[in-house]
């Protein structure tokens, strides 16, 4: 067991998989010589050489096209899109090509590839470098969508993603890169589509993802001080989605709160609320509530960005008000 940053967990995860399988290759902008703009891939070029760790030009379409073409012909590529906002310039490859080609070809081709990307806000980067775009990916059939909240999950879920035979969108949260967590020694391999109950609580269930997970946990601790026992589920994987864990917990508490960094409309929490409403309505003691960023682009100034993204305080306030009304 060692304490590791989320950032270093990324490099360890890639190392673990590249050492295991020579067909795993890695490409992206500044990923090799520079070690990544977030320093999450330091040392990989030195370890695996320029044939396996390839610096690319600023050509997001070529990066994803290369990954797709390589995946359909025998390699298991890892592609980095530096900021998740940049998916907007290469979304054709993601949405039209990679996601659909297995289905369109009646299974003739498959795409064992991982696209990792720095997602999310909190770093004062403004509206074009801060978005949480996991919902974009979740809306498209044919993509698996993962967003880890801690270093151990980064490694375990990344390993599962690389070994998965289908395309996985792996959203690393930029705001979490410097956070630390305990990580077991040796190889770590987790399972996609498994949510994790981080905390049990009899009164309410908070469902959160990525950077909202530590805030949800902190909120649950604060709520406990005020006499409200809230459980916390880390969704971890939006596709496949572990609905059974969520339904079981919500059925036990009767209250559901989602905490989403994404702008309001069509956030992943809406899907979870919809599933809960359809499948365990009779267990609910009150309306499910979504705590999200308002439906606005993210601002740059720290004072404004902090107001936009759900904070621990906001989570506490919303849940306390709802539980006492």
């Amino acid at each position: 067991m060692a304490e590791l940053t989320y950032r270093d967990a990324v490099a360890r995860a890639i190392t673990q998989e590249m050492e295991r399988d020579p067909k795993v290759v890695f490409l992206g902008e500044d990923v090799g010589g520079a070690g990544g703009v977030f320093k999450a891939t330091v040392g990989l070029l030195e370890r695996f050489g320029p044939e396996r760790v390839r610096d690319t030009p600023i050509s997001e379409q070529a990066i994803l096209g290369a990954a797709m073409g390589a995946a359909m012909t025998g390699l298991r590529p890892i592609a980095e899109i530096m900021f998740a906002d940049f998916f907007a310039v290469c979304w054709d490859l993601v949405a039209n090509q990679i996601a659909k080609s297995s289905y369109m070809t009646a299974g003739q081709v498959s795409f064992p590839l991982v696209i990792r990307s720095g997602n999310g806000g909190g770093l004062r980067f403004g509206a074009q470098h801060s978005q949480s775009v996991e919902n974009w990916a979740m809306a498209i059939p044919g993509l698996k969508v993962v967003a880890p909240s801690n270093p151990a999950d980064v490694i375990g879920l990344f390993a599962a993603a690389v070994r998965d035979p289908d395309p996985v969108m792996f959203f690393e949260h930029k705001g979490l890169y410097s956070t630390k967590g305990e990580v077991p020694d040796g190889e770590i391999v987790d399972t996609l589509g498994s949510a994790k109950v981080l905390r049990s609580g009899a009164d309410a269930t908070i469902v959160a993802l990525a950077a909202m997970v530590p805030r949800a946990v902190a909120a649950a601790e604060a709520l406990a001080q005020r006499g409200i026992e809230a459980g916390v589920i880390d969704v971890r994987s939006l596709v496949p989605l572990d609905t059974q864990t969520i339904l079981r917990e919500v059925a036990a508490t009767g209250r559901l709160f989602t905490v989403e960094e994404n702008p309001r409309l069509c956030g992943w929490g809406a899907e979870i609320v919809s599933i809960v409403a359809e499948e365990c309505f009779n267990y609910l003691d009150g309306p499910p509530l979504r705590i999200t960023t308002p439906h606005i682009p993210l601002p740059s100034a720290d004072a404004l960005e902090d107001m936009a993204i759900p904070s621990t305080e906001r989570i506490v306030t919303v849940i306390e008000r709802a539980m006492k009304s």
Partner: protein
Amino acid sequence: MTSTTDGTAATAGPPGIDPGTLHHPEGSVEVPTQLALYRQMVRMRKFETRAYDLFMENLVKGTSHLSLGQEAIAAAFGEAMEQQDYTFATYRGHAHTLARGTSMTGVMGELLGRTCGVLSGKGGSMHLTDVSHGVMGSYAIVGAHLTIALGAAWSAQYLGERRVAVAFFGDGTTNIGAFHEALNLAAVWKLPVVFVCENNMYMEYTPIRAVTAVANPAADRAAAYGLASILVDGNDADAMYLTARECLDRARDGGGPSLIEARTYRSSGHSRADPGKYRPDAEVAAWKGYDPIVIYRARLMGRGVGEADLDAIEETADGDVETATVSAKASPAPGADDLMRDVWSDGGWSWRN
């Protein structure tokens, strides 16, 4: 001057193009290969003609893009490529798929949306794929497949395989970003990929010259990526074949990518809905006089190939098209099982537990 079947005079080269600007590859093509090229072109022509008739009968739904008039390019690569090579085609991909040996029934069935189709009716005319014959897909969003082809070439290079990826695309593709991203990265990584621009003079309905800063939309851009400018007569099956061999060999031997601009003309409109009325009559007539199959038939006869041999190729192709049509019509429509299959590589579609 040779004479075409309808009596119009055939020109000596592609209309409106200075022959001095064209690439003249070295070598010559032996008669057996020429017969194979002729057979390929005839099969494509007859298949596409039947496909058009079936649209008119409303048996082919949606849209479809025919290669009528452009057969020499697909035929040349079909003969020049090796079995292990990869084809990446566009929505105008019937001919490129047939060129690699995919069954006509499989292609016809796909156009008709039947279970005998190569994609069980799930892809349709614009997405023909047959991995067993190296057809790695037909891509319907302009530009993307150039980057995907470079990925297949990257994998061949990395794995030490002697495979070449070939991406076919239209002139309109040269103005989209993915074209430039793919060319640059393929050149930087020296990948075994051949990019083949089929310049049929129109990006959908608009003349390519009206929307492009250079006269030769692909060839004039080659220098930007350190590549040779290769402008070739795309209606001359021999020139196309020799150029294909040259570029495939270079790629296979580690010489990196090539960009070919093949000048051609589509005899029909852009797609099913397009009668092609925006084209000047004189231009259409001039290119009709430079039909790749007509000029090739004359050339073969000039080399002593008997008319009966050529007629036999045509008759066999007629029979193949008829068989494919009958088989496809007899094949059942796909069902609910097909609807929900193959979202994931394990065949399933589930997104939750």
